[in-house]
């Protein structure tokens, strides 16, 4: 095992290698038979999601290293070409075009925001390059954005809100209030909860939309407390979420109502602090703590720990691993890197890489996977020990919109 992980490579190392390879690209034709399998990996290395992106790169490197150690594709090794998309769709589209035209990548995996992945997807679709997105979006698996080369390894907001909503309405109560960031993410999540709530007899007390970047929610607290909800669904992200949770803690709202966030990020929870977040519920695509029950999670965590100084992977980081590994596994199975052949293997492929069984639904290439319902801990043993897993909602096709609903019927 130790020999396998002897070569440790940082993010900068990968970037540097990528630059050297790019400079040497004209000579690549001389040894065409050994051309490596190139995977473009545009992620926001700079900007507000930089820490998540760094984790995605770390995880993706593990998938590439594993593939190469297992002999690659008939001796062809894989390499990861990391690019900074700066969390900007225009930048991401340009990087994707360059990766395809100049670096001649076989596949693209990556991105970390809805708009950025849709930009990359437009570019790859136009040029017939296979793209596996590792960030949440409903549109990417819907008409008109979806294309035959589009795959979606991350969850969709619809399935996330559905799973979290069903759990919350069943266990925590029916009287609900929504606090949502006033943009696509917030609206989509509220719509997802409402759809579930309607089937379970939930009573909506209020929907409060707040502008993105709100720095003070304290005026909302008395109003929310007066409504006496069982659940406050908190459909915002990042710093807004941290501030709301802290003020809900200080004002005592947390004592009378459950606060439920559709997506609770490990990094946000670490940044926000244990005390403020204690008791906050949410959903996630992955939490390393499932390793006690899921063998593939244990194996992935162990490799990650070994390669990255004992760190533990985050939720979005782990998607970098499974996104890259899925594509490479399909290429190995197809015995080729041709887009059509790899796509044919991927569509319908069943796999268990890090979180239990998953499969790509054939009609829209959405990865059907389990959703974990988690609760924030008051104190943990290591910095990443932040959640208790309350329930595992196993992946089933009925959690997703039907392909007809997505306009792909």
């Amino acid at each position, binding site marked *: 095992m130790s020999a396998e992980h002897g070569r440790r490579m940082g*993010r*900068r190392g990968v*970037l*540097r290698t*990528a*630059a050297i390879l*790019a400079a040497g690209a004209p000579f690549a034709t001389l040894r065409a038979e050994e051309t490596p399998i190139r995977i473009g990996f545009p992620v926001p*290395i*700079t900007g507000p999601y930089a820490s998540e992106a760094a984790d995605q790169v770390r995880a993706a490197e593990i998938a590439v290293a594993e593939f190469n150690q297992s002999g690659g594709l008939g001796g062809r090794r894989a390499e990861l070409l990391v*690019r*900074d998309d700066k969390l*900007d*769709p*225009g930048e991401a*589209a*340009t990087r994707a*075009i*360059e990766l395809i*035209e*100049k670096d001649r990548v076989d596949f693209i995996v990556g991105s970390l925001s*809805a*708009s950025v992945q*849709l*930009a990359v*997807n*437009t*570019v790859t*679709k*136009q*040029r017939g390059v296979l793209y596996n997105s590792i960030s949440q979006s409903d*549109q990417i698996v819907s008409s*008109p*954005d979806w294309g035959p080369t589009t795959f979606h390894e991350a969850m969709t907001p619809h399935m996330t809100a559905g799973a979290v909503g069903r759990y919350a309405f069943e266990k925590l109560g029916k009287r609900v209030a929504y606090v949502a960031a006033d*943009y*696509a993410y917030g609206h989509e999540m509220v719509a997802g909860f409402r759809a579930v709530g309607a089937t379970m007899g939930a009573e909506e007390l209020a929907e409060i939309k707040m502008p993105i970047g709100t720095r003070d929610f304290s005026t909302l607290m008395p109003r929310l407390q007066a409504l006496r909800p069982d659940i406050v669904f908190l459909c915002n992200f990042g710093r807004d979420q941290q501030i709301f949770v802290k003020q809900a803690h200080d004002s005592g709202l947390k004592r009378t109502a459950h606060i439920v966030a559709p997506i609770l990020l490990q990094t946000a929870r670490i940044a926000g602090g244990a005390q403020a977040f204690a008791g906050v519920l949410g959903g996630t695509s992955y939490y390393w703590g499932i390793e006690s029950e899921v063998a593939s999670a244990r194996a992935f965590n162990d490799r990650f720990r070994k390669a990255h100084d004992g760190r533990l992977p985050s939720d979005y980081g782990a998607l970098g691993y499974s996104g890259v590994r899925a594509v490479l596994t399909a290429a190995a199975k197809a015995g080729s890197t041709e887009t059509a052949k790899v796509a044919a293997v991927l569509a319908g492929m069943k796999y268990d890489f890090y979180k239990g069984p998953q499969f790509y639904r054939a009609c829209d290439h959405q990865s059907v996977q389990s959703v974990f319902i988690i609760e924030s801990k008051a104190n943990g043993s290591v910095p990443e020990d932040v959640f208790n897993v309350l329930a595992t909602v196993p992946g089933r096709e009925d959690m997703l919109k039907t392909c007809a609903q997505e306009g792909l019927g």
Partner: protein
Amino acid sequence: MIAVFLTRAARHRALLAALFLLVLPFLLPFRATAVNVLIDGLFAVGFNLVYGYVGLLSFGHAALFGGGAYATGLALLRLGLPWYGALALGLVAGAGIAGVIGLLATRTRGIYFAMVTLALAECVYYLAYQASGVTGGENGLRGIVLTKIDLFGLDLDFVDPLTRYFVIATIVALALAALSRILASPFGAVMEMVRENEARARASGVDVRAVRVLAFVLSGAFSGLAGGLQALHLAIVPIETLDYGNSGMVVMMCLLGGAGTFFGPFIGALVFLLLQNLVALVSSHWQLPVGVVFMACVLFLPRGIWGQLARWRPA
């Protein structure tokens, strides 16, 4: 010596620009970046028309660029116009938005002009952000897929990097020739007159406000065209094209290259994009060296890279 040479060369500036565009894709590591240089270069040149020649600092040019991009994208996507028609609509949209912003903003001057243009551009941003049914809102406008274009009976593959570059380069070269003509016209002289001495221009019978508005509209036309080209190039229009960051970027490019010079803004765009992209390839901390270069330019090249070069005389 250099200055004398440059003065002579300036007579054929449109031709020189075209020659430069001809070799540019072979000098840069990435064709897609070369196309971005063309587009941002044209945008910076358009901005320079109001900032460099009339002396108005606009912080709202993203609205003109983004307006052109959305108009072109929507024309292709929803109206089904041919690509040249869509591009023309982008140009008109840029000029139209510039007309509205220009008429309102030229009532003020100095820092207030910058603030009013910024505020109006933010209005355009929120309009596009909220009208998500039409513009795609936060996710941007997607799916402007243009794989083939016909040019005077020629069927060109627009996905091919070099073809795409030369189609866009031709349009940019024509735009630069038009700009050169405008600057050489009496109106070009009047613009500089307004910048240098407003009172004197007024005394000479120049309608200063009309000149400013017209310059702003022309600038909008160039910016809108650049935006339209970006929509064709990237096949998407991100909401970020309307963001104030885009307005700031064009000011930066213009200052870096040299405001008030013909080639300066283009050089600025080239240096700006190259620095960002090449440094980002070798280090994730690309902002640091790029920032140092910008500071060095402000300290040692106050007239911008091209502006300083054009004035350089050996001691």
